[in-house]
């Protein structure tokens, strides 16, 4: 309709420049374009597993598997006998921590390593954790730490003690180190812990005899009484930022505890040659790589011994892809171990995933008829599996919490991963030998590296252990999703701008974006009347600014309230109250400000105010999402998926209503505004929680306490999800609601 009008106009006017023409065309078809962009974006996400490429080892220096593993049967025996000895020790001693520490110190010293203990206490802000069904085992849920957090740390004696051993590489200078971490929990010590430490010792003593070491090997045995992460993070913190007055009374207290712990029976402690330096915090140069591993008993899956890999660091930061490649290639090609990435159990069985996979398979069959060599689709089952892996990884990254102690290394730009080996109860020795050889191979490969990890990708997703999707690929769907926001914003503000500068602009005719002829006519009328609409811009900016400020305040309030000492439920109520109240204040202030600039406002401008608000909202949201994509990509992706339809589809209800009753209605238009309205309501601050509750209420134990604790842990772990929800999603949803409910002037005016 509008098209024909332009056609006529164009024939009269000189041909505009190509760029202008292109822009005009874009704006002309903006609804179709943004619809297709969104659909293409979603489809692009779905075909990501098919776009994945095979991994390859990019850094030649790594040479995985090129050296023969020296880990032998006698080492396996040592691992097993050590585990048995440990279990015996633990069953004989009441104080597990003491027994294990002492055993470790003696064994480490016997291998010729430098050894020391690192006592620490619970960090001031106790890192509680999510009780997410998927992250079991890697986080410890601390329900009782509320009372501990407030305590004066100086007064509080360190209660946990990690043991650290350092092998000084015999022929190297020792300016770099590789850190191995084998966690154990003294309060929950059983067979698996003993096996992990036994394997740790076997590997450590094997490495202590290796002449090929170019880097020092640090074996950190964190006391994970408060969780593995805090223990490792604490050690790393002291490694890099030693407390200024580290010989204070606090330190003395640590040493006292150490003495108490270790030297109760004088005879054996006398044999600890380095007993005097056990309290020294020894270092081994710059840490190049971290490797956390633990052994779990379990059943073989499908007759293959498996290793589970966790790699996601804080806010989805991943270790260098080469590291995972090395772990994978040694496991698969040398030890025939099966690596797998941790997935959330439910996803693989989602029927829609399989359906999508099957659809792609069918399409591929068709294309193969045309070009036989053209094959892109994966088998539906593989597709579902890869997708599940991808989604799980994205989910972990969205939560923003590291999936294990390796996350602590990431804070210091150290590449690290966690490996979990499954040891079957039968044929244990055989698998232990494989595990030992595998670990030795990985360490040897890492040891070969001359530089920092830098060759391969840091920004990637894994859809399987040998398939990766690099940043260049996964940014495409995001770009497609977000692209429509600035387009729509331009389309919305263009006529407005045009109205303001009508007298000078040559190419002013493109008011086609308006959905009806009436609107177009009205615009022309406005232009003729020379109305200045800068007032509506100012109003929109004040409104959006007020809402954004309110959102920042809401985030700040969450932070402030989390510092108080009350129950979680009360805190949540408190926060909700503050947020609601401050929203009222924000709107009042906004009304007051816009009222004071009322003198400029014309009625015509007022009719348009919602379009200006929408344009500004779209612009801000697009910028927010783009910024977020650099902080935590999956969060921004999920943000784009949820916010883009809302932003695009939102129209004032009155407007939709009138449109539905106008003469030029189209089914598509009605459907679009209906979808927009429903989506806006669903994503609103009230609709979204209801939605989550109705879908996942039975899966997750959602109550106000858990919700608050979850939010608090996001805050403590500095997850990008919280700022996304509070600073991007919340204001956007509120503004969309505002648009939805805004009143139009009566039609006859």
């Amino acid at each position: 309709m509008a098209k024909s009008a332009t056609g006529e106009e164009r024939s009269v006017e000189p041909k505009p420049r190509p760029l202008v023409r292109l822009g005009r065309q874009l704006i002309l078809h903006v609804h179709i374009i943004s619809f297709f962009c969104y659909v293409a974006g979603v489809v692009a996400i779905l075909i990501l597993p098919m776009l994945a490429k095979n991994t390859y080892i990019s850094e030649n220096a790594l040479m995985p598997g090129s050296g023969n593993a020296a880990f032998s049967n006698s080492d396996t025996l040592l691992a097993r006998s050590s585990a048995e000895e440990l279990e015996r020790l633990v069953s004989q001693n009441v104080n597990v921590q003491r027994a294990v520490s002492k055993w470790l110190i003696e064994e480490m010293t016997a291998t010729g390593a430098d050894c020391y203990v690192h006592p620490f206490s619970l960090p001031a802000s106790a890192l509680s954790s999510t009780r997410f069904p998927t992250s079991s085992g890697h986080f410890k849920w601390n329900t009782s730490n509320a009372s501990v957090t407030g305590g004066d740390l100086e007064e509080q004696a360190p209660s946990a003690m990690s043991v650290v051993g350092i092998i000084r590489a015999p022929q190297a200078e020792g300016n770099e180190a590789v850190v191995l971490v084998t966690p154990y929990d003294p309060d929950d010590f059983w067979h698996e812990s003993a096996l992990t430490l036994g394997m740790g010792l076997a590997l450590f003593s094997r490495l202590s005899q290796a002449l090929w070491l170019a880097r020092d090997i640090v074996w950190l045995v964190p006391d994970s009484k408060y969780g593995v992460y805090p223990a490792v993070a604490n050690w790393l913190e002291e490694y890099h930022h030693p407390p200024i007055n580290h010989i204070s009374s606090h330190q003395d207290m640590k040493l006292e505890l150490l003495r108490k712990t270790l030297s109760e029976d004088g005879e054996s402690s006398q044999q600890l040659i380095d007993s005097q330096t056990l309290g020294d915090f020894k270092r081994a140069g710059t840490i190049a790589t971290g490797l956390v591993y633990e052994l779990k008993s379990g059943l073989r899956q499908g007759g293959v011994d498996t290793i589970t890999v966790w790699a996601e660091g804080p806010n989805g930061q991943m270790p260098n892809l080469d590291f995972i490649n090395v772990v994978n290639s040694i496991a698969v090609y040398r030890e025939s171990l099966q690596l797998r990435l941790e997935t959330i159990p439910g996803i693989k069985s989602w029927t829609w995933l399989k359906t999508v996979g099957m659809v792609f398979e069918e399409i591929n069959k068709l294309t193969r008829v045309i070009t036989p060599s053209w094959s892109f689709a994966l088998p539906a089952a593989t597709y579902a599996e890869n997708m599940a892996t991808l989604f799980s990884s994205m989910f972990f990254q969205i939560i923003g919490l590291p999936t294990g102690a390796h996350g602590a290394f990431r804070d210091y730009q150290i590449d690290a991963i966690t490996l979990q080996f499954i040891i079957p109860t039968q044929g244990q020795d055989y698998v232990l030998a494989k595990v030992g050889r595998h670990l030795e191979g990985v360490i040897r490969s890492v040891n070969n590296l001359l530089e920092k990890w830098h060759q391969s990708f840091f920004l990637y997703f894994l859809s399987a252990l040998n398939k990766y999707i690099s940043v260049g690929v996964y940014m495409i769907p995001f770009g497609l999703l977000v692209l429509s926001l600035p387009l729509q914003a331009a389309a919305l503000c263009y006529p407005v701008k045009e109205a303001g500068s009508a007298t000078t602009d040559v190419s002013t005719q493109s008011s086609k974006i308006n959905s009806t002829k009436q609107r177009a006519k009205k615009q022309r009328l406005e232009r003729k009347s020379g109305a200045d609409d800068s007032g509506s811009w100012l109003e929109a900016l004040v409104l959006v600014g007020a809402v954004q400020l309110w959102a920042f305040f809401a985030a700040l309030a969450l932070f402030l309230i989390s510092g108080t000492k009350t129950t979680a439920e009360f805190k949540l109520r408190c926060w909700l109250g503050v947020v609601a109240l401050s929203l009222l204040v924000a709107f009042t202030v906004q009304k007051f400000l816009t009222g004071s600039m009322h003198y400029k406002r014309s009625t015509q401008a007022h009719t348009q105010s919602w379009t200006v608000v929408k344009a500004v909202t779209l612009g801000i949201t697009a910028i927010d999402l783009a910024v977020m994509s650099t902080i935590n990509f999956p969060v921004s992706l999920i943000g784009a998926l949820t916010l883009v339809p809302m932003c695009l589809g939102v129209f004032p209800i009155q407007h939709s209503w009138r449109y539905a009753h106008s003469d030029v209605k189209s089914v598509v238009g009605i459907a679009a505004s209906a979808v927009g309205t429903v989506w806006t309501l669903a994503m609103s601050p009230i609709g979204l929680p209801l939605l989550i509750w109705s879908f996942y209420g039975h899966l997750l134990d959602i109550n106000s306490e858990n919700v608050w604790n979850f939010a608090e842990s996001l805050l403590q772990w500095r997850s990008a999800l919280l700022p996304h929800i509070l600073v991007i999603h919340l204001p956007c949803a509120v503004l969309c609601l505002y648009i939805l409910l805004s009143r139009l002037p009566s039609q006859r005016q």
Partner: protein
Amino acid sequence: MAGNSSSKTNGARIDNSSRSAGCSSRRRGDEIRREAGDWQSMAFMLVRSMKRNSEAGAKKVEGLVAGARGCGDDVLLGNHLKAIVPTGSAIGQRCCNDRTMANNSFLTSGLRSRQVGASRAFVWGWFLCIVPFLISGCHSVADKGREEAFSEDLLIRPLSDGKVLNHFYFKNYLHTLGSAAHNHVFPKAISQLVRKFHISELELSFTQGRWNYERWGALDPVGSSNAKPSGVELWAEFDVPSDQVDPTWRNLTHALSGLFCASINFLESPAVVAAPSLVFGSRINKGASKEGHTANVRKSGVVRYGALPREAVCTENLTPWLKLLPCRDKAGIATLLDRPSVYKGYYHSLRVHVGRSQPGGAVILEQTLTLVLQPAQLRERGSKELPNWSLTSLFARKLEGRCPLAKSSHVLLELERPLVLSVERLAASKSEPAELSDEKSQQGRRNDKGRQVDVADNPAFHMSPYPDRVFVESQGSGDISQASSLMLDYDLQNHSSARPLNLAMLWKERVYWSSLRGPFRVSRFLIGSGNEKGSLAIELKRNFDLPVQDEVVAANDVEVTIFQVVAWYVRLYLHTLTARVDGNQVPLQNIITQMLVTPAEDRLSPAVLEVKLKLPRNVSIMSLTMDFDKEAGSVHVYTDNLLVPLATPDFSMPYNVITFTCTVLALYFGSLLNTLRRRIGEEERLAKRASGGKLKESISRFMEGKSATQKKLIKVSGVILIAGIAVAFNYALEYYQVL
């Protein structure tokens, strides 16, 4: 004395008297006295530093910023410090009792031999090894009237962690350095070097691995002056006017580079060379000052110091080193040097030291090779037994006699005092039941050293063959009630190819002991992470196994000298230097007695910091920290134990970065300029006026008057014509190709 009688028949015995509790108080007093003696000894330690390694190229430029010496993080006082390189930093520490700062008080606590049947010559030889600056004196006695003299010794010491220390010591003496003189034994290369560059003293070392001061000892001569930083270290003192020092140094580095097949010539650049004044220096001059010359005899600025921490050490360095020996590795102790065994070790330090007995006097060349080897032994994994070893198992060779040119040739096995103590204790516990009944006689025997332990076959170990002689070291105090370290001597004169020496030690029981550690553990580390700033910290921790709480002793301060070289591209903020004693910050002037600072100059010279500290004796921890800026350069800096990650772009990606940036900039500025400069209205008017060229005009004239259908037809036929020409051309091309 107890040993005197027994030496011939069953060897020396280890004094067992210290076993009884009755003597503990006496022993304690004794220890303190001895302690005081130890403190008088001067030792110094440098913390090595390193600097950019130009060879590392773009990938990783390494440098040593600062680093505590070796073995990880701990440096013990009493070590001779070393190291360094291009940039380096070193810390020298010197501890003295400040009442008696006599430099050669070393002597007093040194080995005062109470030898049993030892030849004087032998004792001297060993002594020289320990106290290098005494050498000349001893020698002149021993070699009176001789122009040249050569001696070879091998010191073997079992270490507490089961490894074995092997210290090869070759000494060459040249009485006069005549320009035309012909040398019989003394290597001509060295004598020419000394003559040409007017060297008063020179030390060059090639090292692989780190000396473990905690386990291998720091107070003994090997640990305190032969432990070197890894890589190449060179320092020299010249007897030339100060304006000649730098050119002489440059020439010297090139000469040595050729002589030893190493990249020593990289030390010619002044950006990597330091001129220390407090730490390194000639012992000759210090000795001279004692003799009544002016107090500050040492001319400032005649010492140069440089190090290459990343220089690899291999057989190409060993071969020229061996060529300096009169018998090379064809005869004598050097025949043991089986290359694979030598380079498999945990520590390997090749050293050349050239000194003069006095300015212009006799030239003394000492060559040492210090090896720490792990005896290969099949033992149960996880067993804590000490491994047995023999010369064959360590070197895959036997000793088949001495170098015929050597004046003396000895193999010595040293049993450290703590080890002797442990063995005594063990022996005592074994024979305890028998002794209980005879308390009184035991007491009596203890007093006159009656009871001893067989040095070669006792409950702890068995030595074969039996030593020719045993020396007992006295501990300065002269009190012999204590166990002393023992030296088992094997004279190679008694061995030949028919009767090779294969020294072997067989452990019977696990003995625990620990070597003597220095008064301080020193560590140097970086504080901070990230790419912006960092701090360098040097921390000294007291080793409390040395009793220092005694009030009299506590009154004395400890003097520590820190020598730190920092590459110019690490920007040090000297004003941020802070010192903490036992965790409390103290004003610098309270503990610093002397400080020499040479600020860095870009690409010209490194920053050199020499700080002399005086620490109260009861200090348990002292730390110095200084901030630096990482953003000055785009390199990684390595140290022997410090790696400073600088803010570095990924060098493998410059192409991407440059192209992306340039594209974005071009687009941005292009469009901006376009928008600003072009006036669209004007252009369109112009375009309308001159709407196309002549061809266009004629076409439009031709088109005029035609109907729309005709126009279309003309256009289509035009397209077809062009396509036809293209096809024909293509066909013609193919046709010609076929032809």
